[in-house]
């Protein structure tokens, strides 16, 4: 036993020495892992997002020489949207770089669920921008989760508000039939709770219809829709499922302008394969849409003119590419915020977590970053890890996405009690301590 202890001690001293040596050796670098997918059924949507993320980190390194002089070290790992491979990627990357991973973007609701369990142990925050579990916006229970910019409950609420506005008020929804065609995974099931709640409040009938992974077989679902004749169809798909749904809707003659996708079902790869069939299709927007803004000029100047970009120039400015940029920018700004407290050096996940929780982006700051027109100001707090709940609706006109609505805010009178109840249930089930947010600075 003593021998074993001695060996263990020796090994740990050696390991500590090694870690120290490599930390001293490494330059001033902040490591960020990228869980992405460029292969598999979800690659058409995964690739532009991954390109956007990679380009923004490269831009920060090229243009500013890193974050206040701390270079970003970015490494991708292909998860193929599979939860077990995603967890393997996370475990592989979490300790790289001088201080380990700053944060992790799982880019899959399933992987987010798995990493939610690991984050408090590894002390690495999970940024699930526009996805993940909806109740995780409650920072008092989900200390390490940040579903920035909006959860699925927000998305579903924004779509319902838009439909209600078209119909002339929520009271006009009484007796209407609304169907949700969803990817049969945690991702697709997330909005059901909110839609059921809304159905109860306003007296419309709500029918969820699952589509199994990867979603290329939907004939039966759409046959049912043709028989039921719902007033609206909401679409919660990803990858090939989206374009298949739109094609099937065209095939059964369901009016596309009565179809509303979530913000993950509203990008170019979703509508282009359906060609003319997608015209009129709506989707929610995770604030930003397609198009080129201030930041894109910098991308051209510092990356694409030098041949360093990861996409083709005419793909820069597509919806998911822009989402990759936004995702990377929020991470970089969180690190910048954390540096104001912990110093301009590589930071640990725990320090970056403070940065995300205190992230505040004003309209002026967004303009400086070149993101005005894409995002609205946001402020993350201990109680609210979402930061903002704004969104718009866009429509595909056959060639490009057109914004067709004003800004909506998801209704916190409906969402807040649901979030509180779900977060409390989670905390009780797992016997977790709950932070008192009023005591946080």
């Amino acid at each position: 036993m003593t021998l074993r202890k001695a060996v263990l001690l020796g090994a740990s001293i050696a390991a500590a020495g090694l870690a120290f040596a490599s930390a001293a050796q490494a330059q001033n670098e902040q490591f960020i892992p990228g869980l992405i997918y460029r292969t598999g059924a979800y690659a058409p949507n995964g690739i532009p997002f991954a390109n956007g993320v990679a380009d923004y980190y490269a831009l920060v390194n090229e243009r500013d020489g890193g974050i206040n002089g701390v270079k970003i070290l970015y490494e991708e790992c292909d998860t193929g949207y599979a939860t077990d491979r995603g967890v393997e990627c996370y475990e592989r990357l979490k300790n790289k770089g001088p201080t380990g991973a700053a944060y992790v973007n799982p880019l899959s609701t399933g992987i987010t669920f798995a990493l939610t369990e690991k984050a408090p142990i590894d002390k690495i925050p999970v940024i699930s921008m526009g996805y993940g579990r909806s109740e995780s916006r409650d920072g008092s229970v989900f200390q390490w989760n940040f579903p920035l910019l909006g959860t699925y409950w927000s998305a579903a609420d924004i779509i319902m508000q838009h439909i209600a506005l078209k119909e002339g008020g929520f009271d006009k929804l009484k007796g209407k039939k609304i169907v949700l065609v969803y990817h049969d995974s945690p991702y697709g099931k997330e909005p059901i709770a909110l839609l059921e709640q809304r159905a109860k409040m306003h007296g419309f009938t709500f029918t969820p219809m699952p589509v199994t992974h990867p979603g290329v077989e939907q004939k039966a679902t759409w046959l049912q829709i043709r028989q039921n004749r719902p007033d609206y169809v909401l679409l919660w798909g990803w990858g090939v499922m989206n374009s298949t749904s739109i094609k099937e809707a065209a095939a059964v003659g369901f009016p596309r302008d009565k179809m509303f996708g979530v913000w993950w079902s509203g990008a170019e790869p979703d509508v282009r394969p359906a060609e003319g069939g997608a015209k009129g299709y709506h989707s929610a927007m995770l604030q930003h849409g397609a198009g080129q803004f201030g930041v894109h000029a910098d991308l051209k100047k510092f990356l694409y003119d030098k041949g360093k970009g990861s996409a083709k120039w005419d793909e820069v400015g597509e919806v998911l590419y822009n989402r990759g940029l936004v995702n990377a920018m929020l991470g970089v700004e969180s690190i910048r915020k954390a540096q104001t407290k912990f110093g301009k050096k590589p930071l640990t996940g725990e320090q970056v977590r403070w940065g995300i929780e205190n992230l505040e982006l004003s309209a002026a700051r967004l303009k400086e970053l070149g993101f005005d027109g894409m995002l609205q100001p946001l402020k993350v707090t201990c109680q609210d890890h979402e930061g903002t709940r704004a969104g718009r609706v866009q429509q595909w006109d056959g060639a490009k996405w057109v914004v067709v609505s004003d800004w909506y805010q998801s209704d916190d009178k409906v969402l807040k009690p649901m979030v509180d109840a779900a977060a409390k249930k989670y905390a009780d089930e797992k016997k977790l301590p709950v932070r008192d947010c009023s005591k946080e600075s």
Partner: protein
Amino acid sequence: MLYREAGQFKTTYVADQQIFPILQDRLFVLAVIVAAFLAVPMFASPYIYTEILIPFLILSMAAIGLNILVGYCGQVSLGTGGFMAVGAYAAYNLWLRVPELNNLIVVFLFGGVMAAAVGILFGIPSLRIKGFYLAVATLASQFFLDWLFARVKWLTNYTPSGSVAVGKLEVFGWHVDTPADRYLLILGLVVVATLVAKNLVRGHIGRSWMAIRDMDIAAEIIGFRPLRTKLTAFAVSSFFIGVAGAMWAFLRLGAWEPLAFDINRSFQILFMVIIGGLGSLIGSFLGAAFIVLMPILLNQLPGWFGVRMSTALLSHLEFMVFGAMIVFFLIVEPHGLARLWAVAKEKLRLWPFPH
């Protein structure tokens, strides 16, 4: 020279009937077990535990379970993922609803027993249908169980997304939180399970399975009851698979959705059994190692040699090389990796002076 049994005389039946009649085999297996329990915890990093050893061990156990059914009893099954899900969700519900029994051993055994019950239920058709037709019937069980856990909300405790999570795991007061603890617990269970499986397949129960496998009519004529024999095989097999499913959910994933046990899982484990070797316990381990570790290895290999390539190319290469390797192994040795292992042992016997 090293591996020779000359001079090892067996003077009793007990000595002749032990699991490893050759001294070198006994020492080797003992050394492996001791190394796994003592040496590995000194060197392994969390990554090695959580991504290499834990998945390998758990899926080995599932492969042993399936091997009992397919390899020893000859009943093809495509419902492995579903039976793993039964184990996982039964364990979850016991853990959640009866906090007094928050002991992983009890929880896992319950998962196994429930899986065995479901396995018997879905094994009943095997009395009438055989071969490929049985495979299709078990495929139905896979889809039914997938559907059950996705739709019956009570089983997932009414979580909005259908994803459930566990935490605060303990065994007789021992908190299994760190990867090392989890590894030791899984290793212990797998060692016990393998010992049980080995003794089952070399005893009269295993022999009755093999009789049914080799020719069911002949087996019936010499006195084995097909009903009992086939259903015990289904029960034992599903029990192992159920415990493996519960371990996969509790100790590997921590949070999971029915998708973790979909049809791909069934195929994955069936491939382990086929590539490892039908009707061989060592084959179950070799097959699991091949299927679990090879993709991860292929994905990281270029990086270790300093070759930089795009993530997409790396993933595509992984698929291609892995597929080619499966084809290669099945051509070179259709009886699986276990057969290669046996051939290696034969050769070692004659080494260094082959005829």
